[in-house]
C-alpha cells in the first residue's frame, strides 16, 4: 500500500456533534450490550438490531434506547466501567450500527475502549460531578446538541463546557485518522520480520 493511497482513505475524527442518550448504571457488561446468542453469525451486519436486546425487552419499551425522546441520538452517555466483560467487538459494532458515534462516561473497560478506537468511535471520560450534570441536562432536554471536541478536549452542552478526558495516543489516532491500525502496523515493513528473527520460538 503506497502512502498516497493511505492518505486518500484516512478518516480524521476531531469532533462529534449530535443529540445524546443517557444510559445510567455502572459495570454495564458486553453480554448485556449484545447477548451471545446474537453472535452466531459470520458478519456484523445484523448487530445493530440486537443492541441491548434483553435489557430492552425486560424494560418493556422503557429502555433509553427505545425512548422516543432519544431517537436519533448519536452520543451515548454512560456510567463507570462501561463495556466490561468480553472482548467481543460485536458490542461496539452493535452500538455503532444502532447509530452511536461516540461514548461519554465515567470510565470504560479497556478492551471495549480499544475496540471502539479501532472502529473510530471515541470514548471520552468525565469526572463524576460533571458526568452527573451532563446526564441531568440531557435527560431534561434530550433534543439539545452535545458537542465533543477532541482537539480542545471538551464537551459542550446546555450544562456548559466541560473538560473531558481521552488518552493522548487515542486522541492522536482519531484526530490524525490513524485509528485503523492495520495500515499503521503494516507500515513497519520488514521491521516485523527483523524482530521475529530475534525471537527463538518464532
Amino acid at each position, binding site marked *: 500500500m503506497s502512502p498516497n493511497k493511505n492518505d486518500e482513505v484516512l478518516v480524521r475524527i476531531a469532533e462529534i456533534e449530535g443529540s445524546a442518550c443517557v444510559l445510567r*448504571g*455502572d*459495570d454495564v*457488561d458486553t*453480554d*448485556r450490550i449484545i*447477548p*451471545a*446468542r446474537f*453472535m*452466531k*453469525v*459470520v*458478519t*456484523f451486519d445484523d448487530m445493530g438490531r440486537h443492541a441491548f436486546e*434483553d*435489557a430492552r*425487552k*425486560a424494560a418493556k419499551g422503557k429502555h433509553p434506547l427505545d425512548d422516543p425522546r432519544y431517537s436519533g441520538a448519536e452520543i451515548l452517555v454512560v456510567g*463507570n*466501567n462501561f463495556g*466490561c*466483560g*468480553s*472482548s*467481543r*467487538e*460485536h458490542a*461496539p459494532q452493535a452500538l455503532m450500527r444502532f447509530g452511536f458515534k461516540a461514548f461519554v462516561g465515567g*470510565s470504560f*473497560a*479497556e*478492551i471495549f475502549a*480499544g*475496540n471502539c478506537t*479501532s472502529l473510530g468511535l471515541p470514548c471520552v471520560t468525565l469526572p463524576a460531578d460533571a458526568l452527573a450534570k451532563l446526564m441531568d441536562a440531557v435527560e431534561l432536554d434530550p433534543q439539545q446538541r452535545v458537542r465533543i471536541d477532541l482537539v480542545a478536549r471538551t464537551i459542550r452542552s446546555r450544562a456548559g463546557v466541560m473538560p473531558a478526558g481521552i*488518552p*493522548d*495516543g*487515542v486522541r*492522536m*489516532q482519531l484526530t*490524525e485518522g*490513524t485509528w*485503523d*491500525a*492495520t495500515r*499503521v*502496523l*503494516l507500515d*513497519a515493513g520488514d*521491521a*516485523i520480520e527483523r*524482530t*521475529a528473527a*530475534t*525471537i*527463538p*520460538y*518464532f
Partner: protein
Amino acid sequence: MTSNASPSGAPRSLFQKVWDAHRVRELPSGQTQLLIGTHLIHEVTSPQAFAMLRELGLPVRFPARTFATVDHIIPTDDQSRPLADDLAEAMMSELERNCRDYGIQFFGPETGAQGIVHVIGPELGLTQPGMTIACGDSHTSTHGAFGAIAFGIGTSQVRDVLASQCIAIAPLKVRRIEVTGKLAPGVYAKDVILAIIRRLGVNGGVGHAYEYAGPVIDAMSMEERMTVCNMSIEGGARCGYVNPDRTTVEYLRGRRYTPDDAGFEAKAKAWLALASDPGTVYDDVVRIDGSKIEPSITWGIHPGHNLGVSESIPTPNGVPDDERAGVEEALEYMDFAAGASIEGTPIDVAFIGSCTNGRISDLREAAKVAKTGHVKAGVRALVVPGSMAVREQAEKEGLHEIFRAAGFEWREPGCSMCLAMNPDKLKGREVCASSSNRNFKGRQGSPSGRTLLMSPAMVAAAAIAGKVVDVRKLS
C-alpha cells in the same frame, strides 16, 4: 531475546522482558507495535476479521503462528456434521474454509485435539513462557499462567494480527499480587481469584498486568495457576501472569509443540531466566492472606459481587455509596434478600466446565464430591470437559462413570453453558451453580437466568444438596 539483562542493567519484571523482546517499534500514538508470537483463533470472533482481510486483499503474514479451534458454538451432545443448528454449522464451515484458504492449522474434532481455545493451547504446548499470545477472546489471560503475556483482543485486532502479526498497544503498569500463607482444605484457585477480584474490584486492574506470586501461587499446579490467570480480565486487568518455575517446566515437558529431549533443557533454562528479576520495582504490590480465604461464591451480577460461603449477602446500606446502586440492581435481578445467608440458596442447574475450571484436576475434585451422593431430584447437572484430551483422560480414570452414577450428564468438550451459544442454556429464572467465570445478567442463555460462580467442588456439592452448601462440611 539474546540476553535477559536490560540495557541499563536495571532489574526487570517478566512483563517488561517479554515486552522488550517483542517490541517492533514505538508508534506516534505512544503505543507500542508489539509482535505476537502465538495467535489463537476460534469461530466466533475470527470470520469478520478474515472478511476484512479479503476486502483489503491482504495475506496472512505468518500463517504458521496462528492456530484455530472450535469451541463456543459446538454442541456438547451430538457433534456429528453437519451440526444440527444451521447457524452453528455455517460458523464452523467458515472457520474451516478460512483455515484452508490461508494455511492455518485447525484443531477440529477430527484431530482429537479440539477443545476450548484456552485449554488446548497449554495442553498442546503451544503456550510457552516468554511468548506474546493474542486471541479474540477475553480469557486469553489464562495463558499467562506460563509466564506468557497474553491479551484478549477484538476482531479488528484479530485482523491486525493476521495481516501483520502485530498489535498496537499502550504500555501497562505491573501490579504484583502476593498471596501469602496456605490455603485451607476445600479452598481452591477459583476462591483465590474471586477473593482477589473482591478486594481490588472489577475494574481495579485497568491499565495493568497482574503478576501473581507468593507461597500460595508457588504451591499451585499449572492448572490452578490457569484458573487464577483466567479471571484476571474479570478484575479489569489487561493480562495476568505467573513467573515460570520448575512446575511450569515439568508441565511443558513432552508436549506436542515443546522441543524434544535434547533441546528441552536449554529451553527450560531460558524460560526460568525470564522470571521477574529480584529487586524489580513494581508499580504497586498488593498482599492477600491466603489462609483467610474461604470457599467463595458470587451472589450478584458481576464477579466482584462475591463472598465467603459463611457470609451474608450485602445490604445496600452496608456498602460504600458508589456501590449502592449496583448492589440494589443485583439484588433485584437475583431476587435475593439483602442480609440473607448465601448458604442454603436453592439451585436448579449445576454446570462444571469452561476455560476457568474444565480441566482434569477440576474434574477430579468434582468427582470426589460426586462420589458422596446423588444429584438432587429436579436439578440438571452437566459436566463438560474443556477439551477432547481432558475428556479422554477423565474417561481413562473412570471419572465419567462416577459422574454418571451420581446423576450428572457427561458431555462432549466445548464452552457449553459458560455462555450458552450452543443448545446448553438456562431456562427462565433458573439458578445455576457454575464453575465458569461470568455471572452477568443473561450470561447462561436465559435473559433472566441467574448464575452463582464457585469452584467445581462447590458446584458438585450444590448439585447433590440441591442448594448452596459449604464443601468443607462434606468431609
